[in-house]
């Protein structure tokens, strides 16, 4: 591939990547892939991609002028590897052709699924003690049940959590899990946590549908560990939250 053509494709691909990331950032979907904490870096990278594309477009124009002025034909001795360009099409193809979908229960088989979560440092639980029980998310409750030696003070507290529905054969028919994925860095390190919901109408909610569960906290034993159970007073269907994952 002649160098000038290579440069043009390079600039177009940089621009395409930049636009793709900008659209994802604008729609708030970057958090489907990475931790909220790293979104600013990706946005900075997106701006830098725009600068690179602009530099290459200017360079192409300049090279064209030079070629006209000096009748410069020495370009042909450079043969850049066009495979570089093909590879950059892969993320664009995957990103554009496959609809955006947050990790859900279909990933449990490979990514793991936990009701006790050996996942977060205990030093962050201290702050949880002071929080309002209604403000705690699934991760907070799992942390409390993992790291507090005595959980009795928490039993009977009111909880309100959002998550998606999952079932397995460890729980009874009038129960389901309300679960969330936890992402430390990006979707590659995601793993699922879940707490049990107890409700007579448990069967009416479909797997992977998102629900807001309110009710009283109690406890049950699962895999020899005490896990939090919500005695549901109300269960509402809700849309997928803007940030589907929790961040430790």
């Amino acid at each position, binding site marked *: 591939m002649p*160098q000038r053509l290579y440069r043009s494709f*390079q600039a177009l*691909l*940089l621009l395409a990547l930049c636009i793709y*990331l900008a659209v*994802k950032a604008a729609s708030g979907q*970057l958090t489907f*892939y*990475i*931790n909220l904490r*790293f979104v600013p*870096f*990706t946005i*900075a*990278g997106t701006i*830098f*991609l725009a600068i*690179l594309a602009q*530099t*290459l477009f200017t*360079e192409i124009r300049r090279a064209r002028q030079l070629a006209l002025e000096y009748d410069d034909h020495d370009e042909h001795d*450079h*043969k850049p*590897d066009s*495979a*570089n360009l*093909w*590879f*950059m*099409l*892969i*993320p664009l*193809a*995957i*990103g554009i*052709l*496959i*609809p955006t*979908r947050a*990790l859900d229960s*279909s*990933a449990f088989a*490979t990514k*793991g699924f936990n009701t006790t979560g*050996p*996942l*977060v*440092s*205990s*030093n962050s639980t201290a702050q949880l003690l002071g929080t309002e029980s209604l403000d705690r998310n699934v991760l907070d409750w799992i942390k409390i049940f993992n790291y507090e030696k005595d959980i009795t003070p928490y039993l009977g507290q009111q909880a309100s959590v959002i998550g998606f529905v999952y079932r397995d054969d460890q729980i009874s028919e009038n129960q389901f899990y309300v679960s969330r994925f*936890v992402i*430390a*860095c*990006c*979707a*590659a*390190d*995601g*793993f699922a946590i879940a707490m049990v919901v107890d409700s007579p109408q448990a069967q009416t909610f479909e797997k992977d549908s998102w629900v807001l569960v309110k009710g009283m906290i109690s406890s049950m034993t699962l895999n020899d560990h005490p896990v939090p159970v919500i005695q549901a007073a109300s269960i509402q269907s809700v849309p997928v939250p803007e940030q589907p994952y929790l961040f*430790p």
Partner: protein
Amino acid sequence: MVIIFPVEKTAPRPLPKTLIITVLLVVLVLVASSMIPLSVFSGLWDRVNIFATVFLGIFVEAIPYLLLGTFASGLVEVFVDQDQMSKLLSNRPVAAAVGGAFMGMIFPVCECGVVPLTRRLFHKGLPLPAGISFLLAAPVLNPIVILSTAAAFGWKEMLFWRLGLTFVVAVSVGLVFSVEKDMGNVLRPVLTLSHEHERDHAGDSIGEKIRGALIITADEFFEMGRYLIAGAVLAAALQTFIPQSALLAIGTGPVLSVLVMLGLAVLLSICSTVDAFVALGFIGTFSFGSVLSFLVFGPMVDIKSIIMYSQVFQRRSVAYIVLIPFMMSLVAGIIFNYVSP
């Protein structure tokens, strides 16, 4: 086509056709499967979705860091001249390796960005031991990663052992390479793209220099991005089909648990700037020594960095760069497990 490192006359390297074909096939399968009614292949479609999400997770996360590394490489190319570099660093192996290990404090790059930058520094005359120890140490011994590790683990043992062990491993591998005097035996020849790379930038204005640096950044972003993408495809595919629980279930003994964490470090392929937060999740399930070995080995070697190394180094050198840190991290992790279980 310009060959920078002296090598015997070779034919132009053929395109890795198999790689391209594999990847194109993957894309084709993805596209084809998106046209089939979802209900028929819902299980397969789920896999495809997981693959896409994990792949884009790794890729999107890595983009800013790869850009940072390639931009640093571009800046070095236009602002640093070779005489300065050779004056800056000693040719004595130990001094060079130690100096190289600390260069990450000036160039804060992670494992994606460090590869193009190291290659550039070699081109500018950096001694081999210094470059190798920079390559292995910089993803940890740099301000950003030190702060993120401290944020995850506090200014405590885990941070200090991580820094100390990384330093020891990087310097050791650097010294191993000091035996080799001929760079051509270690590095693959570089095929440069544009006139920017061979021009003398000394007389340019600042604006011209920045422009030159940006063009090199773009070129290297594509050249290295290709291997990042190949690595991310592989890592995402493995994660889509190999259950993590299978790895975690292998064992928690003093030796097996270290092996499991080393395997996980390679499989997850996450950036060193953030891996401390991931490692935090394993405290409790895994011993101090196992998590420490994850934190030391992960930034040096994972699926995407192996693929990127093999672009820059000869195959035998890649083997040294991968295996020596593996053995040292393994031994360190096992010792910790026996001393403080």
